[in-house]
């Protein structure tokens, strides 16, 4: 369990329901993520992972409770909070008609960077993520893996202190997954807090230090991966996941 150290994310007594009343409802949810940690949030479909990430990023507003990012209240929705976070959604949330450079130029400007900073970061990111040779090609011609890398590059262009990733490696080949995970580890070494969700649990085992399992809107357990496996006498995160959330199908409508 999280005890000491500066908190990157602090969620206290969170309450939330969708206006239509058919979404996941959080009631009194608490979650803490330490600064500089690689944190994994896992759960079956419909457990509330994406909703929780949306609340952290300010895309949704909580009914009650507080969410703070490095001490800043998310509900204030000011630019200071937005500058702290980088968000890599599951969808390719950018302009397919544009090239990687053009996308980074636009999202870089919206992230508050200057023209020069954008240029420097663009060159750096395209090099790291292996997109240099397609920097001026339209993204809609790219493979799924290349699109994922562009998605990641946009999320990190402004060097966010907290990077929130919603299934960043879904549908990619082994090489791309490897490259993305390595880059995330590199970012973390440089101080970026990672908050990560995925259904690729074997991948998560290698990436995450701290893990929380969420189901039906409740955090059912949270600790370091090692402690959790030991405590529940399981060999892998997948076994732990199934033992705590069951084997029934989850239909997320």
């Amino acid at each position, binding site marked *: 369990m999280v005890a000491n150290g500066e908190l990157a994310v602090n969620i206290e007594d969170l309450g939330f329901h969708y206006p239509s009343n058919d979404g996941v409802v959080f009631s009194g949810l608490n979650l803490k993520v330490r600064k500089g940690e690689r944190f994994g949030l896992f759960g079956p479909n419909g457990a509330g992972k994406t909703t929780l990430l949306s609340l952290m990023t*300010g*895309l949704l507003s909580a009914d009650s409770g507080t969410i703070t990012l490095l001490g800043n209240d998310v509900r204030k929705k000011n630019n200071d909070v937005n500058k702290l976070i980088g968000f890599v959604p599951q969808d390719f*949330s*950018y302009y397919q008609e*544009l090239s990687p450079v*053009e996308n980074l130029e636009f999202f870089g*400007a*919206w992230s508050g960077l200057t023209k020069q900073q954008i240029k420097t970061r663009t060159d750096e990111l395209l090099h790291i993520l292996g997109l240099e040779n397609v920097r001026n090609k*339209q993204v809609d011609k790219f493979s799924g893996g290349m699109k994922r890398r562009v998605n990641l590059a946009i999320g990190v262009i402004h060097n966010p202190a907290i990077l929130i990733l919603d299934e960043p490696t879904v549908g990619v080949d082994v090489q791309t997954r490897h490259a993305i995970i390595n880059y995330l580890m590199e970012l973390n070494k440089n101080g970026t807090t990672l908050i990560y969700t995925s259904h690729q649990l074997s991948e998560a085992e290698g990436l995450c230090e701290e893990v929380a399992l969420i189901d039906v809107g409740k955090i059912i357990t949270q600790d370091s991966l090692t402690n959790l496996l030991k405590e529940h006498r399981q060999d892998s995160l997948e076994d732990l996941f199934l033992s705590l959330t069951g084997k029934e199908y989850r239909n997320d409508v």
Partner: protein
Amino acid sequence: MFKLWATIKKDCRVLIRDGIGLSLMFIMPIVLVVVVTDIQNSTFQLINKNKMAILVCSRDTGESGKQLIDAINKIGLFKVYNLPKNQDVKTIADSMKDKDALLSVTIPEDFTRKVKAKAKSVSNKAMVSFGLQADSVQKYTGDVSPLTLYYNPVIQEQLRLSVKGGLQSALQIVESRETLRTLYFAINEKPLPEKLESEMLSNKAAINEIPVSKNGSLRAPNAAQHNVPAWTIFAMFFVIMSLGGSVVREKVSGSFVRLKTLPTNFAVGLLSKQITYVAVTVVQAIVIFALGIWGFPLMGLPGLNIPLDVFGLLVVTIICGWCAVSYAICVGVFAESHQQSNGFGAISIVILAAIGGLMVPSFAMDTSLKTIANFSPMHWCLQAYYGLFLEGGKLTDVMQYLIPLVLITLVLQLITFLGLKRKNLI
């Protein structure tokens, strides 16, 4: 400012790469304006220059029948082809097909007899009225037997009515001539001298046609003056095919969601879209106006005359474009898919154009439709353009149309804002 500039650059790049949207915004309206102007111009030429073919089947062998054919010829509207007297309806229809004539008129067998009988009756009544002795005051029974006009159903009602008017005036001449002759003979017991008859029947006062314009210009508006502004407005509203779709794509792809997590106000995004696409609508107007001014004469169509108040024209164009862009963004925000945006966008624009008077002039609408027209932004756009193009007005003269247009635009912006809020996109 850098954020706004970067966003405008992004919007321009997205637009330039949307080939279908661009062609719908530029090529489609250009084709429409050329085709519609050509059709209207052809109708004008058909009536005024080329003359319509008309088949005349006179079953009457008398003098009045011949006079009527002569009078129809002199109207100047028709090219007359005479048919043999014993034609039935089917043969007449076949002849119309053969001679490519849309009209045919049949003169009844007793036409001369009836015209003369009516003239005699009127003449006798006049003699009694003058206090002179008439032969006998015959009571005239029945009108002159009607002519029968056969027409191809493709002829529009307006054109048919003008043909009918022309034939009635020819009939009037024949009947008046016979009445004059009979009356003259009854008084003078000798025939009406040809010269006097000609003077009495010859056309009277001419009708001068002067367009009423605010700048005192006497230039008669042509088909281009009517069509170019109307279809320019249509083109402007067709930005919905690109802009509406672009807004939907941004929503569906999650770009809007991502932008919401970034430290920039979403108003920058909306402002950029409006600046970019209003500029597009201005370019559309420039292209279509240029086509009207320089391209139309090369195609044998009447050229477009640009209003004297060019600044006023620019302001009207920008406000019309702003309204069109606001409508497109509004539809894009509420549409759930690209197909929905394009489908609803295209259909709604055609409906707004129809009720706004772009397809049927609003003066020809009934009262209830005229009231509905006020709710179409295109109606106000058209009135403002016509105020400049047709009435020779200045910006101040068309302010009465721009104010409602701006109000509609602001309402659209408000609806867009509320829609974005409701969908949690801003």
